[in-house]
């Protein structure tokens, strides 16, 4: 693997936007891509020398990144039209010119940066936590959880709130109340926890309200684009069952 041998140039077409309410515009850049380069590494190179294809010097492109290994969720954007983390989008596997756009469904801050605050508000709305008495040791041994249950739960605990699933979901929109697939999956996770389930009813009621589970239209794009392969639609099915039972309880009384 000699770096020199694999050098090639690629064209990036980037949808830019200077401010939240400014008009978007497109710019093209031609860059040299090293072997193994990914979209984030190209954007990092671009910061040093931000000159368009036509030779115009422009402000560096704003974008987000942290971990560079697909675990922090910061760098999600539309790459050739599909939402995905930019750090794991290898140039060699993308069709050129590569089109980069900010992640849809979220307000643009600048260029490829968006404001995903809504996702975190939604996590609050569905009470995606286990309510503990306090963060101290109460000397009680961890409850038993079968390896099978663990394996199922673990899948959901890897959600990095990147927002790709939200971007791809036709039911999520900046003018819509729908909390979206990722927070729903967290409800599934918390409801399965040995003590998290004490608040199951409350969480279910939260997702039975406006903007909750019912707003999912089963398009299932979410599960297709999730970079962490989180079984979102399984969660949605399981929550369907939980809410059905919950509604029966609500209608006919508990026991």
């Amino acid at each position: 693997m000699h770096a020199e041998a694999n050098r090639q140039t690629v064209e990036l077409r980037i949808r830019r936007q200077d401010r939240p309410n400014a008009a978007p515009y497109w710019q093209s850049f031609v860059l040299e891509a090293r072997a193994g380069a990914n979209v984030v590494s190209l954007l990092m190179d671009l910061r040093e020398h931000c000159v368009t294809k036509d030779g115009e010097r422009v402000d560096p492109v704003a974008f987000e990144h942290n971990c560079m290994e697909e675990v922090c969720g910061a760098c999600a954007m539309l790459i050739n039209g599909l939402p995905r983390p930019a750090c794991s989008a290898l140039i060699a596997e993308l069709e050129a010119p590569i089109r980069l756009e900010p992640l849809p469904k979220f307000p643009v801050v600048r260029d490829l940066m968006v404001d995903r605050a809504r996702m975190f508000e939604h996590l609050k709305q569905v009470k995606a936590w286990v309510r503990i008495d306090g963060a101290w040791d109460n000397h009680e041994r961890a409850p038993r959880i079968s390896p099978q249950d663990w394996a199922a739960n673990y899948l959901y605990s890897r959600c990095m709130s990147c927002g790709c699933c939200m971007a791809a979901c036709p039911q999520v929109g900046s003018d819509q109340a729908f909390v979206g697939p990722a927070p729903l999956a967290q409800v599934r996770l918390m409801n399965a926890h040995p003590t998290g389930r004490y608040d199951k009813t409350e969480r279910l009621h939260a997702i039975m309200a406006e903007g909750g589970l019912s707003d999912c239209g089963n398009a299932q794009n979410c599960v297709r684009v999730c970079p962490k392969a989180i079984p979102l639609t399984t969660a949605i099915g399981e929550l369907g069952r939980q809410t059905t039972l919950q509604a029966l309880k609500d209608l006919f009384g508990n026991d």
Partner: protein
Amino acid sequence: MSASARQVIVIGGGLGGLWATLALAEAGHRVMLFSLFEVMRSHSACAQGGINAVLDMKGQHDSVQQHIVDTIKGGSYLANQPPIQSMCEDAPGLIRTFERMGVTFSRTPEGLLDQRLFGGVKHKRTCFAGASTGQQLLYGVDQQVRRLETEGKVEKQEWWEFLSIVKDVDGVCRGIVAMDLRSLEVRAFRADAVVLASGGLGQIYAPKTTCSTNSTGAAASRVYQQGARFANAEFFQFHPTAMLGEDKTRLMTEAARGEGGRVWVPKDPGDRREPLRIPESERFYFLEDWYPSYGNTVPRDIAARAIWKVTRELGLGVGGADAGESRDRVYLDLTHLDRNFVSTRLGAILSIYRKFAGQDPLETPMEIFPAAHYAMGGLWVDYEKDPTRGGMKAGSPRNHATNIPGLYACGECDYAYHGANRLGANSLLSASYSGRVAGEAVASYLSGLEQGAEAAPAALFETESRRQADLNQQFSRPRGDQNPFRLHRELGALMTTQVGVVRDNAELDAALSSLRELEQRFERLDLSESSRWANQSLAHARQVFDMVKLAQVMAASARARDECRGAHFKPAFDLAIPQGKFPGDPEFEAYRERWKANNADWLKTTVAEYHPDGPRIAFEPVDLGLLAPEQPRDYR
């Protein structure tokens, strides 16, 4: 909220900062939590392998005492022992608390907490959640803090960058100045106490680091430049097993070796065969060869240097000495292990390797090399020793206090627990534990505080925020041809070659002068960006400047320490263990004496203080009350 509730600022929402936030909010104080971005994207999310705590789940008679000894020895006795003792004692309780928060720790077939082996120890002591432990732990506390947010006890200031603390005439910290990373507004915030939990500084070695791009150390550097002491800066850990990349070197967790992964190179450096076609007899398992007792799970400093030696000195890297880039690689092999087992326990790193290297570690050995990973050094913090129990005194306001009253530090940005080398899976522990301790200490500090920040004159805050706004102006004005991103790259290259795995005084001197020159080049800075909205170049330029300042501390501290200890390795001062000799052999005993004599000179904490001309280095003694340095580290 009680009448005695006070306002605290926590900077950083990694494990350290979130735990401090939890402890403070539970003590009834109002917390304002600052972070460069949504806290759940903090670097802690990258930690893969696990977190240490003695639960003795594996019938190995593990004990807290052994955890303490391993940690002390792993750090070459350089860490103060009372904090280590308390941390190890509290570790099991911390795991139980994480577990209650809903962290998905991996389970045994019986449904109990599973534990695995990590480097530098002989017991399975590491709790883990697949290979994404840091992510799971971080989310666990993040969820709790989000709950407290809905209860109005915590207010998050995400997308705000900490720039400096505000001190009153008595030198007491009364608040901070921060910048909104979107509007670039610079504003002062009052606080009765400030906790800094800004994480590591691996970006000083970029791109050859496993750290997130925000692990710059800039925040720690800023308080250092305002008078906080910085300790043991020369101790920086290079992780032996990272996959090379031009933008970042991605970690392949130590758990890969803990679970049975083997490190090797072809005996014949010119061997061009596919690795799996090379027969056992033609492979050199150098770690197992050189350290038969610990084998592949020797501590990181030792493994990193062994790989260094094999590739750089013996020319045995994959493909041989003339293989260009790849001469710097050795194999980390998982292919002999059960595929199912590996997939469930290491799935996260398998997918990283597949995605970024395009190869499947289940099919072919991974190619790895050491990369900058973790800062043992950090802001100097105090502790109060418990005279009866020996550990840290619980709830003492001195614990995790920096030398600036009212300013506390915890997490990777402090120096407290790891001495000269950190054991794997001990830093998720120290980050969480120190966060909680710092929170409790601040609560005690506040209860003894007569006057809060409300009494501090407004002029203090105005002056400091004006100073910071002026600095922004200064950085923004084009003054030459120096690009901040290029300066960062040069810093990384310089530090990697001259303040890296192996050190030499002449090179360190050269590094120091290069760093001074690098600092001066900021006089000719040109951001080449004029936007007044979300200007990332400005924020980055300021960070790089402060990183250069911190790099000077690292180089100067390394220059000052003429010995080999843990991660700090100067071959000119190596007291090599006599080969084939063990305790009792006269040669070994003679070595032990030399080792002790060296300890008499060098077993002390390096403490740097800021001075405009360059760091002032001093030393202070280490508390060795629990385990006297009688046993040299020996992992053979």
